[in-house]
């Protein structure tokens, strides 16, 4: 029993990342009808927003500390971050420690700008082109973004730690009455899951309960009619693209402490996220979220030793296998609507 709970928990953080990326992909597909292969790159840029903010905050100047000496006997030179000059030593250190959560605030405007520029500058010209062209141009864009990040930050993963308070692990089993150390779960992964749940809830609430969301949903159902009613649907869809980029970026920011960001992390997630979208059903937002968590949890179950003993290698292929089975038995995916991408 405890092993099962542990695997479900383990699946949650990856599942959250899949769900967030798939949600953004589906938003873009549902509104603009564009298959965005550069979405993984947006996730990666989000993670590098966290890295950038961390680097900005730790920008420092050298001060000679007369009271201490280095090993040669000279006065020790100490790097003092500018943040500590501004806010005092303790507050500055706290700000640096909390750089990843702060990067959320930093990344939202950055990602929205990137998303809007992408849509206005490139994707706009591809609405009437075939899906294959859209896939190809966004694939090219993904390569370019990835290479730019590689030039700026290098090819090695950059460790980006979570705040001190979240670094430990929670003995989750004790709470449920199991033995101590049966279910150990890092705090940050819990935070990540909660964060993902909030973002997903916020996106759904935004679409469901605001006038803007209502118009966007109407536009997803019938773009032309909404346009005929005198609503500038293109502008709203552009904003939705920015929002989807922001969702992917936030998923990346918060993922930085779990996996040190590197330039190809976007591509690694992209392939799986596409599988998630297709399993959930092209154009279905609840489907994307459901499939994201489902596949994340399945993946972690498949990596249990007991299961690997029966079916060796299953952990490597489970997601693809499930995708193939679902696509063949339920061609529209779990929650796909009729008439979306049926050609």
């Amino acid at each position, binding site marked *: 029993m405890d092993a099962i709970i542990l695997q479900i928990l383990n699946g949650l953080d990856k599942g959250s990342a899949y769900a967030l990326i798939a949600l953004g992909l589906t938003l873009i597909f549902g509104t603009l009808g564009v298959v965005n292969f550069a979405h993984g790159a947006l996730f990666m840029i989000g993670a590098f927003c966290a890295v950038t903010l961390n680097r900005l905050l730790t920008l420092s100047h050298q001060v000679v500390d007369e009271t201490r000496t280095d090993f040669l006997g000279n006065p020790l030179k100490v790097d003092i971050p500018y943040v500590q000059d501004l806010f005092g030593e303790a507050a500055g250190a706290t700000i640096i420690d909390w750089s990843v959560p702060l990067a959320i605030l930093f990344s939202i405007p950055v990602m929205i700008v990137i998303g809007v520029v992408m849509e206005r500058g490139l994707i706009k010209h591809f609405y009437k082109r075939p899906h294959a062209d859209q896939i190809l141009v966004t694939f090219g864009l993904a390569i370019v973004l*990835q*290479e730019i990040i590689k030039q700026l930050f290098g090819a090695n993963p950059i460790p980006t730690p979570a705040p001190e308070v979240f670094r430990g692990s929670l003995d989750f089993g004790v709470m449920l009455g199991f033995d101590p150390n049966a279910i150990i779960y890092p705090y940050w992964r819990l935070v990540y899951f909660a964060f993902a749940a909030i973002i997903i809830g916020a996106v759904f609430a935004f679409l469901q309960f605001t006038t803007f969301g209502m118009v966007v949903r109407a536009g997803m159902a019938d773009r032309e009619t909404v346009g005929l009613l005198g609503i500038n649907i293109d502008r709203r869809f552009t904003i939705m693209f920015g929002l989807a980029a922001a969702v992917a970026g936030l998923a990346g920011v918060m993922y930085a402490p779990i996996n040190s960001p590197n330039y190809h992390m976007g591509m690694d997630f992209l392939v799986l996220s596409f599988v998630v979208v*297709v399993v959930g059903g092209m154009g279905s937002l609840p489907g994307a979220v459901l499939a994201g968590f489902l596949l994340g949890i399945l993946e972690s179950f498949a990596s249990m030793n007991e299961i690997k003993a029966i079916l060796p290698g299953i952990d*490597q292929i489970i997601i*693809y296998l499930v995708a193939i089975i679902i696509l063949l038995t339920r061609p529209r995916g779990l929650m796909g609507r009729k008439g979306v991408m049926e050609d």
Partner: protein
Amino acid sequence: MFGLGKKDVTLFLIVAVMALFAPFILNPFPTDSGLAQFNAGYPDLMQRFVIFGILAIGFNILFGLTGYLSFGHAAFLGVGSYAAVWMFKLLSMNVLPAIVLSMVVSGLFAVVIGYVSLRRSGIYFSILTLAFAQMSYNLAYSVLTPVTNGETGLQITLDDPRVLGQSATADGGIPVTNLFGLEMRSFETLDIGPWAFQFSVGYYVAAVIMLISFYLAIRIFRSPFGMTLRAIRSNQNRLYYTGLNARPYTLAAFVISGMYAGLAGGLLACMDPLAGAERMQWTASGEVVLMTILGGAGTLIGPVLGAGFIKYFENIFSKINDQVVHGWVSFLPDGLEDFVVALIHPFVGKGWHLTLGLMFMLIVIFLPGGLVEGGQRIARRLRRRPAEEPAKSASTEPAE
């Protein structure tokens, strides 16, 4: 001639002459000149030109004709390589059985994958093929290690049986791949003045196979079968209404293109008897798509051009480093020189992927028909006849 139309014969002969004289054509700069680094006439690169040409020709039979965008073609390339290396390990170092087996195995593989994937079309088909390719890739790295030798890659060793050949040469080395005694890696060097031209056996074997594949591709393009495939691309429903079931045709196209990929994989293993799982990774599949689009999908010569183009830039661009750039712009004043070098730096050497991505985007945006369309546009511009303009614009519209 050979059952081809007049235009096709001309095209085929041009390609044949280009392929046979490639060691001259690709080696225009004298060996000791500063431009020698732009020469592409060395065996290793020329082999890759023709082998990836075969891969792209095969991919084009599927994508260019039926419009099914497969994102998992690298799986067949990898399977072909493994099959060929196993043939070297078990039977003999002759390349012929290896090539045959790699085509058969990848063909069978394509039947299975195609049978399942072709139930869906559009993006679903792309995702299904991608899923199969990633599965093969992951399995090759993990469970199938006894067959694939995991991360190390499959290699030939001294204690392989090789029932028809010998396990080791007389002097105790690992035997090399050959075609009835002609060693693949051997080459002749011809010195004419300052030029040195290299003629490699491996290259010519691959080039001849490429020409055969190209000829077959022309025949497929011009056949009723090819016409049916084009009909599938333009409107599958109408085809159903006329009483034709499209699936056997698409499956046939898929298997043919899978066998082309397997052949390319087998040839890669013939030139360098080594097979690794990274050949199956989805970035490799993306590369094939890139080559075909870059050259011009649906055209005969496009994929070959695209393959050559990408492989050339991969080799040449990645060799250019800062010193080389400094050498080019040394005539500029110092500050400006450093500035220009800093400007060029991100695009060459290790950054050539950036150039590739940019080039790819520009081509998809401005030249959806690839290099072939670019060539046609230039040709049209050169012999501009105002009377022809309206007729042309009407004929290139898709029939939707």
